[in-house]
């Protein structure tokens, strides 16, 4: 791809780009905050809610172990949710902007 001059301000101002920016920002912040909160619940729970973590739910398997394992499942789920949305929606929206980029003046 030859690198021709682009009017970056025009692309930035384009409603399609603004729509992509808004969608991505809300979605990414939401996922990020959720994952950080969920992660820090583990050390907090292990320190301050030990009685809860000790409750046995499946033979010797206790809430603490289930919760720690759930951290992995949640991390993978977030990755999958993001990948699906990005592959389907963000990439398509971005492609529309790329295809039309040199016409934005």
């Amino acid at each position, binding site marked *: 791809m030859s690198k021709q001059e682009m009017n970056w301000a025009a692309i930035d101002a384009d409603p399609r780009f603004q729509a992509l920016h808004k969608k991505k920002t809300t979605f990414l912040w939401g996922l990020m905050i959720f994952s950080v909160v969920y992660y820090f619940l583990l050390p907090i729970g*292990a320190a301050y809610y*030990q009685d809860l973590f*000790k409750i046995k739910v499946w033979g010797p*398997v206790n809430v*603490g172990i289930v919760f720690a394992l759930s951290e992995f499942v949640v991390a993978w789920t977030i990755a999958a949710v993001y*990948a699906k949305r990005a592959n389907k929606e963000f990439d398509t929206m971005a492609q529309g902007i*790329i295809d039309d*980029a040199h016409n934005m003046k």
Partner: protein
Amino acid sequence: MNLKLIAGAVALAMGSSLAFASAGAVADEFKWMTFMVFGAIIAVTMYITFWAARQTHSTSEFYAAGRSVTGVQNGWAIAGDYLSAASFLGIAGLISIYGYDGFMYSVGWLVAYITVLLVIAEPCRNIGKYTLGDILAFRNNPKASKTVAALSTITVSTFYLTAQMVGGGVLIKTLIGIDYHISVIGVGILMLAYVVFGMKATTWVQIVKAVLLVTASILLVLITWGQYGFSLPGFLQAAVDNPGIQKQVAKLIGDAATNMTPQELGQRFLEPGLFLKNPIDQISLGMALVLGTAGMPHILMRFFTVPTAQDARKSVIWAMGIIGGFYVLTLFLGLGAAMHVGPANILALDKGGNMAAPLLAQFAGGGADSVLGNLFLAFVAAVAFATIVAVVAGLVLAAASAMAHDIYVGVIKGDHASPQEQVIAARVSSVIVGIMAIYVGIAAEGQNVAHLVALAFAVAASSNLPAVFLTLYWKRANTYGIVAGMLVGAITAIGLVMISPNMTYPKAVLKDANKVLQGEPAQPAKEATPAKPASSFMCELFAMDGCVKSEPAKAAALEKPAKPGAAEKLAQLAEKVAGLEASLPTLTDPAALKTAQDDIAKVKKDIVATEKAKAKAEGDLKKFEGQTTSMMGLEKPYFLLKNPGLISIPLGFLVVILGSLLFRDKRSEEMWDELYVRQNTGIHAEGATAH
């Protein structure tokens, strides 16, 4: 499964695994197997390296493998770059010694990749070229930002490298019995052989190592967990019922164990609080991991090797699958090692528990006397060796690229260097950094370097991440903020660690040494005391005047008899052995004879341990004689956490924001539109080189 059979096997494994404690875990007659396996790994990766070398002519090929690595390959390479010996052997070891807390510790290392996936990987691929400096220089003053980025990259890589080199040298010595210096030089030279050929060779070493590591772990878990029909409760119940684990818990919790049943003790192993006792410290570490991984130069660099942002995304998804899956497996590796090898035997070989996975491998193959067991052990030892080489290679390449691309080409040559000159600069830098790594590894022998990994993450999180994140997402960010924030973040993180409990405080060392040598006086019975909070939150962080320190709840303690000093204890033990040995000829009953022999072996083991402790205490006394303060002139830590992230990360962000608001930089503002459009769309992103 027959419990008696397992118990018998455990006893066998315990008895025999101790025989070679001094010469390394792999017995002399089986060492050739380790070298064979490792030789095969080297042969395969070297072949790939020479094949890759033929294609490495340009800078893009050297630093970024011509951007021709596929998403899946890069995912494996990231896992290979990230799963250091510390996580492979260390976390399995922590689980085998402390149970639940070890597993909990592993979670943050995976969660870290969510940040990488959501905010870092794709934008960096879209606007970056080869280094962290390139990303920052996009809209900030190129020379200033490249200089600070290079400094930070070299600092982070050096901390991480030192921990890897020293840890690796010790590990290879413990595993195979090779002399520390030879191990360090061996790792260094081998690593250099890959690194001078650039990113493609390094990538393949990392892929090969990650595949081997995962294969070895899956095999081990199949064997250890398969015994229980892959039932999670069945497996954990066996751990709860295990006498070795129960004993370990009793040792860890001390007085609180007096009124607990064996079952309760075993269950306690699956509950939190045996290792990680300070939640604030853990949150501080968690912050450093979750934000630091995304600022690690050797991880960032990996995203420049794929052709598009979509491949960068795919590679993080793969990496998360591999890394997370691996950490789930460590739960089984760690608990399996605790059951079959026993925490006491693991600790006897290595205080950090690093030998848990290798010893489990030996057990799974049939024990210390079996050929298969030793082949397994040899395999795991070889994988550990490959792990160290692969991780060190990634770090050296990152530091060398900062030196050659950012400093030499970017700052000194003002971006006017011929392609040929650039490749030469890159190769020369990697040799310099590689030699430096070997030197540091040898110079830091015997130093306490374990905390340097956490420090590397803390610096990356306090310095690199705020700069990269705000450059990518905040319109007002500019050169002044970036430079000030990176310097303040890094210096704060390092400074806090220098006054933290990670440092050596001679007074405490001398006190412990004297306790060992002179014994301890008897202690009266104590009543239980409830937990006491610190007088304020700041008092949890700093040892300020007028602070009441927080104290955990303590269980009631029985009266304790005086403990004898080391010399006295050795005399007592020697007497005991003599007594037992004298009684041997009188014993006719084979069972009684066996018990007596076992007792003798046990006491002899105790003698070896006591002698070791005595020698260490005497060494410490000599080393710290007359000293009262640490390197920083402190008698005791002033900063009370081991991890500085809690303070240094917010501070790093704050200074970037303040610096950007206080000063104006036209270029940073003008470039914003271009940066933001490009990082979101990938227009004009660096393309793959065609072959």
